[in-house]
């Protein structure tokens, strides 16, 4: 090999210069490649984002000239119990949209994965179905289920629990959990499919080894299945937490934030402030805060995900 290295001529000074200048050009090339996509991204995402942030510094009713108020909208938002409360409602919705579906999804996926049921494809489809239906349709269907003469109350009456029957969406205590359960129903399918994919990748040998060591189904789940799908759990958590925080369609279609303000969420407040009340400054303030919140939560989740993968 020594001969070949000697045979290769040392690059001349000129060649080196030429190469350097070519590399100088090529430093710009990647940016030229991404420029078209970036320009679209900037025009339709970055620009509106910056504009929204700018609007949040103004008091503007869309018909009169805007008035600059600095961070006045933010101060007002943090002092308004109703607006702050809507962020609290979102936190509760995360329980129903993310935590509960991941717990349920883990159980369902583990069972489906272990049992090797016949017609797995069928069950997968059924479980995933809620994801395919438009949220507006889901919301209308659940509104009927929850109504006074809906199936849920009918079932309670059949079981002799007629005293518990109520207009669920009009009840101050139960409206938010009722809306949350719609989310659980929708998101569980997505989470299950994600987890099933992760579990399918896990080698059968590991389970066999565990079984030889005398592990039961529960021990198997905690020793092998759960660690194997940590990555998928992070992905599922990211998607479902974002869905919980962005929730607008279900609230709009079922309760419009009522009764009182007990199911109002930030996205609904953005809509209502901008289009209902004509207060664009406050609407964008809530929107920017919500965007930052989602960004922050995802940052944390992704950090956790990276750690999980490194382990």
């Amino acid at each position, binding site marked *: 090999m020594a001969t070949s290295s000697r045979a290769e001529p040392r690059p001349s000074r000129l060649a080196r210069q030429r190469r350097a200048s070519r590399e100088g050009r090529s430093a710009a090339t990647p940016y030229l490649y991404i420029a078209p996509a970036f320009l679209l991204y900037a025009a339709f995402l970055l620009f509106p984002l910056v504009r929204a942030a700018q*609007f949040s510094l103004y008091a503007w009713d869309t018909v009169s000239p*805007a008035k600059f108020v600095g961070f006045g909208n933010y101060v007002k938002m943090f002092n308004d119990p109703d607006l702050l409360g809507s962020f609290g409602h979102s936190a509760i919705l995360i329980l129903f949209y993310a935590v509960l579906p991941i717990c349920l999804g883990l159980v369902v996926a583990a069972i489906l994965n272990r049992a090797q049921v016949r017609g797995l494809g069928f069950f997968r489809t059924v479980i995933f179905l809620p994801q395919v239906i438009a949220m507006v349709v889901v919301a209308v269907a659940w509104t009927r289920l929850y109504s006074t003469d809906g199936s849920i109350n009918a079932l309670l009456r059949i079981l002799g629990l007629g005293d518990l029957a109520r207009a669920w969406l009009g009840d101050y205590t139960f409206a938010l959990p009722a809306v949350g359960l719609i989310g659980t129903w929708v998101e569980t399918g997505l989470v299950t499919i994600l987890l099933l994919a992760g579990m399918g990748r896990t080698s059968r040998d590991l389970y066999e080894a565990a079984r030889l060591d005398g592990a039961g189904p529960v021990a198997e789940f905690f020793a092998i299945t759960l660690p194997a799908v940590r990555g998928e759990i992070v992905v599922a958590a990211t998607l479902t937490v974002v869905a919980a925080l962005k929730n607008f369609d279900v609230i709009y279609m079922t309760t419009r934030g009522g009764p009182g303000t007990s199911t109002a969420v930030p996205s609904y407040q953005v809509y209502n402030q901008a289009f209902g009340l004509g207060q664009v400054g406050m609407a964008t303030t809530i929107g920017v805060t919500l965007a930052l919140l989602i960004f922050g939560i995802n940052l944390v989740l992704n950090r956790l995900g990276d750690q999980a993968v490194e382990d």
Partner: protein
Amino acid sequence: MKAYRTGGNVRWTRAVAAGVGAALLVLTVGCAPGVGTTETTAPASPRASVNIDPTSMGNVTLTIWDQEVRGGQNDEITELNKQFQAKYPNIKLDRHAQSFEDLQKTGRLVLTGPDAPDVIEANNSRSQMGAFVTAGQLVSLDPYAEAYGWKDRFPQSVLRLSSYSTNGKAFGSGSLFGLPQVGEVVGFYYNRAKLSKLGLSVPQTWADLEQQLKTIKTAGETPLVLGNLEKWPAIHVFGPLQGAHTPADEITNLALGNPGGDWTDQTNLAAATELQDWVKAGYLNSDLNGAAYDDVVAKFGKGTGVYFLGGSWNTPTVDAALKGDVGFIAPPPVEASAGPSTTGGTSLPFAVTSASKNPDAAAAYINFITSDDAMKVIAAKGNLPVLHASELAPASGVGKEVYAAYELVTTKGHLLPYLDYATPTFSDTLGAALQDLIAAKKTPAEFGAALQKDYGDFIKG
């Protein structure tokens, strides 16, 4: 070599980032929202002379944005447009119809843009007409009212609902900014068969009504039904209740967001207390806050409940469902001799925009579609005309009773404005507070305090 390349990348990245940042800044700074779109400020001072002869206006095109898309409303405006077109072929009408909700949202935007229509239906409320007047986007119709004699055509109680001071501060007085076509009144629909089966006749006084509710409840029926999931329907129940307790002048001040009212006074407290007592006594369906408005109207149509308190626009629905076995009364007055007081008003008034190049033609159009002849067309197409309701009433049925109730309220009693006109945020505040009051999450005093805060802050600001 490696170091050089990385250095190059960093330089490039910085350059690109700086460029993009600068571009975004240039695009945003210096164009604050709303600036540059409202050059047409300063309401044009009322013109000294106006032309009221449409044939002499030359060839012009009028762009009209209305929300008369539902059955009878669409029929009525289509017919009137056809007649106008036949009479004045030199004025071409370009109609853009959209739903109420859509017009509420797009109206604010189109008025500030370059394609503003000549005529627009603007909701009377402070969040719509009030905001447009404040921003100088509507033309004062005073000179036209003078020239066409609108002040003789329309009663003051109707005109005040589309009158603002030119700075938009006072509502209910000042200059006229629009004219409506259709009247609305909130009252009690009743199931004829059930009422007579219970041996009851239509109540003559408020005390009669209270007694009846109790009797009906004892007999095992639901006296009064309402679906309040959407929050606004209870406003139409509270309105007549308030009319029975609070002086009409004060309600008008509260509803128009003018000084002179107090949501925490004894009369309003009594109204709120009575509503909460009705709910506690089971006079209303127990799923009130959780049932959708239209669902409950449909149930009433199928025979649930004896009374339903709602706006006159429900007439076709309940009449068809109960096959004519339904009646309508204005809320009975406290004193049998007095006229009834209840929530009501008009459909959205037609207004002329400051951007219109042909305000004379626009005013001529509004004059045409609100004339006495137009009222006949409006009634013939199944709508409650804002004028001459008793003369144009149907010969029989619930329609006749609705017209009679409207006429009685507008001539003998008080047609109280919708309470959510008051402030830009009041429909939200009142809707949520009423749900709280109904669910006993707020005491009547707390209910009053919540409303007073919104109203009081608006008056001060």
